[in-house]
């Protein structure tokens, strides 16, 4: 529940700010924040088309050969189907003089390859470099590819050319119009004679379910119809070499190059401080000031019930990642209990930062971190809900650290989600949302009363040195007078 709520916050931030950001930064990529580089900084002026083009080329140079060889794949065919995009995103952004067109696709590689309709073929022909061919379709950055055939003239089948072609080439007409995209592909592939051909269809992974973007689930890959067309075009010998590219796609997506870390690091601008001059304790509700949830809670706290509940002196609450405390008369800062909860949050952060490294699976990292938390005196809870049966001297911690920035949640250090989220190995430079929740009991306030803080998605990068934040996480609790 909490998780869904967090996603909702992120999604709303995106939906509201993308178009706005575009208006002020025409170069910034529309929609990029929906699937990329987390959701909280969609006005990042450094997320330019040029930067995305650069990232794509860096990944082709540095990541592509590695993932293909690790998966023992010497050809990767990635099909992004035309006709499949709704136009919703394009309509929202209409008139903003965009310089980036590959929007409105739910393909997980739409930004990676810069296209929303194409047949892209990568071939490992030896050497350091992978051959990159747009067999059919259009791409944003043609310079990133070695060969770009362009869009088939038969993609739009409402034209006279297709009539002429079928009349003149009755022997070479595909069984269905879906097959026009693949015409000639067999020869192209046979010339390269790959041993193993990875194609973007899913066999195990529920990529759509694992999407971070609450309103924009990514696809599980090509349709059954496209799979059949491709199989037919390749013929018996070559089609038998096809395997699912799903794990390779995940590996490709989750390995960041340094240019991605630059964008992930945000704008570098200081955050604007909120003003709460109009907050009147006992009158102003959390909803009025756009708050997210109360942090000072009873054992059986029900956030829904508190939505229109007036803020009181002594309440702590969050707006997104930021934490606020409403001072009592005479107080000049938060009391020791509130400050202690913040210290607990920092202690957990340090434990996570020290122990999460590349090479562990999400599950291994989870076990390790839970062990370290318990050694440090915390109580781990596998759901984000205060457990009144646990020793009240212990702060309870729930974990849901997951990949952010690429539209997918895996790898994930969490008891939640599909098992493959946890089974995935953490790669070098994974961009990780360090999401965890602490529930710190305050017995002196009464049985079951506790302080809750949810970190949401501070942006860390996984390095062999541990977690390193690319942008500053929240630094403290702000007081409201």
């Amino acid at each position, binding site marked *: 529940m909490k998780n869904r709520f967090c996603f909702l916050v992120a999604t709303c931030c995106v939906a*509201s700010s993308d178009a706005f950001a575009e208006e002020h930064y025409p170069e910034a990529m529309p929609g990029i924040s929906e699937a990329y580089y987390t959701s909280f900084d969609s006005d990042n002026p450094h997320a330019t088309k040029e930067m995305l083009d650069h990232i794509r080329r860096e990944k082709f140079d540095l990541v592509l050969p590695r993932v293909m060889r690790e998966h023992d794949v010497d050809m990767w065919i990635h099909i992004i189907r035309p006709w499949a995009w709704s136009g919703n995103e394009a309509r929202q952004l209409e008139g903003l003089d965009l310089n980036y067109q590959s929007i409105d696709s739910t393909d997980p590689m739409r930004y990676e390859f810069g296209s929303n309709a194409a047949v892209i073929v990568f071939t490992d022909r030896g050497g350091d470099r992978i051959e990159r061919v747009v067999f059919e379709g259009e791409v944003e950055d043609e310079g990133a590819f070695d060969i770009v055939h362009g869009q088939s003239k038969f993609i739009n089948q409402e034209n006279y050319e297709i009539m002429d072609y079928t009349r003149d080439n009755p022997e070479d007409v595909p069984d269905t119009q879906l097959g026009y995209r693949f015409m000639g592909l067999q020869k192209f592939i046979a010339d390269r004679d790959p041993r193993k051909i990875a194609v973007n269809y899913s066999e195990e992974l529920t990529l759509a379910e694992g999407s971070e973007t609450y309103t924009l689930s990514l696809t599980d890959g090509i349709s059954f119809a496209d799979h059949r067309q491709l199989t037919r075009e390749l013929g018996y010998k070559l089609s038998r070499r096809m395997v699912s590219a799903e794990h390779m796609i995940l590996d490709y997506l989750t390995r960041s190059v340094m240019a991605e870390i630059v964008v992930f690091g945000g704008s*570098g601008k200081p955050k604007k401080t909120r003003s709460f001059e109009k907050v009147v304790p006992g009158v102003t509700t959390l909803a009025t000031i756009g708050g997210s949830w109360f942090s000072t809670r009873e054992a059986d706290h029900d956030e829904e019930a508190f939505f229109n509940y007036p803020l009181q002196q002594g309440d702590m609450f969050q707006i997104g990642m930021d934490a606020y405390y409403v001072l009592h008369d005479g107080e000049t800062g938060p009391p020791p209990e509130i400050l202690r909860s913040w210290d607990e949050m920092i202690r957990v952060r340090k434990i996570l930062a020290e122990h999460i490294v590349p090479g562990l699976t999400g599950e291994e990292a989870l076990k390790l971190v839970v062990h370290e938390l318990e050694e440090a005196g915390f109580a781990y809870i596998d759901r984000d809900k205060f457990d009144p049966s646990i020793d009240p001297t212990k702060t309870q911690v729930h974990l849901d650290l997951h990949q952010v920035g690429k539209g997918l949640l895996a790898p994930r250090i969490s008891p939640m989600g599909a098992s493959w989220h946890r089974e995935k190995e953490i790669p070098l430079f994974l961009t990780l949302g360090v999401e965890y929740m602490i529930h710190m009991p305050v017995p002196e306030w009464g049985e079951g009363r506790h302080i809750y803080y949810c970190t949401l998605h501070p942006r860390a990068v996984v390095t062999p040195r541990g977690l390193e934040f690319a942008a500053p996480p929240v*630094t403290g609790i702000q007081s409201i007078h």
Partner: protein
Amino acid sequence: MFRKKVFLAVFCLSFVVVEGSAQLPEPTISPALSSLIRGQKFDVILPQAMRDNDVDMWIQVMRGKNPLQFELGYHDGVYIFSDSGSDRVERAVFGAPGDREVYDSFGAESEIGQYVAERNPDRIALNYAADDSPFNTISATDRAKIIEALGSKYGGRVVSARKLSADFLAGRSMAEIALYGRLLMTSTQAIEREFAKIVPGETALNDIDGNVFVRDLAGNEENNTDYVVQPGDLIGILLDANAREFSEHNGGVGYVLKEGETELPPEIQRIWGHVLKTRDIFRRNIEAGRTGAESLEILVEKLQAAGYVYIDRDQFDSGADPEKTQVHIDFHAMGRIASQEEAPRISPTGWGRDLEIPLYHTFALEYMIHMPVPEWGERKYLYLCVHDGVMVTERGIEFPARPIQEIQIIR
């Protein structure tokens, strides 16, 4: 639930930061970012730097301006770091206030002797250098005071902190890398703006911001002078971008079309081809863990194997094979102003040649190409300087921001 969505949307709309134009904002370092970088340097760079230098205590006496102020703190005082062998280096400040987020303990300078004795370090680095160095910052008086405070037992264990300081500054955290990338983008955009200002026959080099230079075919250079840009010129611009103690500079190249030309002439295209070819050689053959000198040796070998002549100074060698293009390289550190010189360097010159290139080192891929053009006459050549910001990772060289893409055409 719907009501909640509406509220969230309203909140989000109200929270969007408004900016005025598509130009990248001036890079800044917020207090939160500054604190983050400082903490990361202590957490992930300092332990390794101290161990690499076989130092278990580092005493840095700070009085006035000091190249390590951003990392350690701006107050005069004595900063002491102790490595007890755990993952974390203990951090203490004496005689000054300090950032309580990153320092563990505070005390008076009179307590230093006792503090050191309690930790019993084997090797104590102190901020002096035997040779001229920006890290030679301790005064004679302060040095005498520290040695006295340490007593004869520990005073004899003091060594120079010069290399440790250089290693500490050269190490990069992820937040620094993100900042470095933003700075690179800023200067790239500024260079593009400067090229856009050029009007052949009107614009002088000193009308253009940055380090602006043109060389004629005999190698005579005009550098930021009142020389007016002419058709056929190959112009280099180097420009920096800064945010407090952080800085980088990179470069662009433009060609002024001659009358009748509509695109780059073959010779200019040829020299650009050498830019790409040599970039590829550099990219494939630099890795962390080697010293600058070792790296240089490998690069020279690779360049020669690819048919280039390596020159150890940025001057055309008229005695070299006229068929071969000559390449000079100076891959110096970038990122922190203080460590531009005192850092690992892949170059024929500089103290940093003997330093090991650490992982995530940020530096300039600065190289100069002198390409003979025999058809234009004996000893006639084109000159071009490339200056891109890069870093080294486990995968080799990466470009945190877009490197030079082409020779800009100036009409």
